[in-house]
């Protein structure tokens, strides 16, 4: 399934992700890592679950609002099976919990403050993602 190169949208979207990360540090003093924020509202929830729930509500609400108001269309294409979503979700949840973060927590916030743990984590998960996609598409799927 081909997707078009979208340099401007990706640069602008990335800048907004960065802006949100900076704002969350300035206001709440927290790392904007989606795994940590989500884990904090899953029972037994963290003591400070209310701002986490508000963050999640904003994150879910904004794209829906952009579409509802006709501001933009959000391309959404799924080239994998439902089974891949079930297995992938489970593996992502386990890995991000043991690894202490995901693309947003390690890849953006941790890398931005040059955390050695986040640099290692990001290098490792980027490598295994490249390897997995290669195996799925060109070894198993060949």
């Amino acid at each position, binding site marked *: 399934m081909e997707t078009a190169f979208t340099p401007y949208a990706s640069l602008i979207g990335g800048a907004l992700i960065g802006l949100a990360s900076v704002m969350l540090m300035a206001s*709440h003093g927290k*790392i904007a890592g989606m795994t940590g924020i989500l884990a904090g509202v899953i029972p037994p929830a963290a003591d400070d679950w209310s701002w986490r729930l508000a963050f999640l509500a904003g994150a879910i609400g904004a794209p829906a609002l952009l579409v509802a108001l006709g501001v933009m269309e959000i391309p959404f294409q799924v080239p994998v099976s439902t089974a891949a979503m079930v297995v992938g979700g489970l593996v992502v949840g386990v890995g991000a919990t043991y690894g202490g973060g995901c693309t947003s927590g390690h890849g953006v916030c941790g890398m931005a403050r040059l*955390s050695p743990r986040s640099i290692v984590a990001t290098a490792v*998960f980027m490598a295994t993602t490249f390897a997995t996609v290669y195996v799925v598409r060109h070894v198993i799927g060949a």
Partner: protein
Amino acid sequence: MQKTVSALVIGAIFGAGIAISGMGNPAKVLNFFDLAGSFDPSLILVMVSALAVTAVGYRLVFATRSSPLCAAKFDIPTKRIIDAPLVAGSAVFGIGWGISGFCPGGAIPMLGLGNVETPIFTVSMIAGIVAARTLRQRAVRLATA
């Protein structure tokens, strides 16, 4: 109250960023990682842009403020040791990202768009978080028993 409202707004900026960037589109994410196939380099620009803004912004925040606006102190991870759970967990995380095309930050903002794949992925991911959390706590209890 201020803390909750500001988190809602910040979450909205994050979600809009994910939606605009293409990070929440599994086909686009997987194409970035498919160097030997239908390669789409867009995601490197998302990462570079997010990283540049965050690196500069964090420096400004830490240089101008001794504490955050709505909390007592900056809550920043202090652990520096590279241990086995970090490396193994991150390796496993990448396998899941490569199977599905979804990472946590990419998936959550797509929950309100009416597709079936995102809720399926999210429920499964929550099950994974709960399972890993339970196993880890049990391991800690065994180690300290």
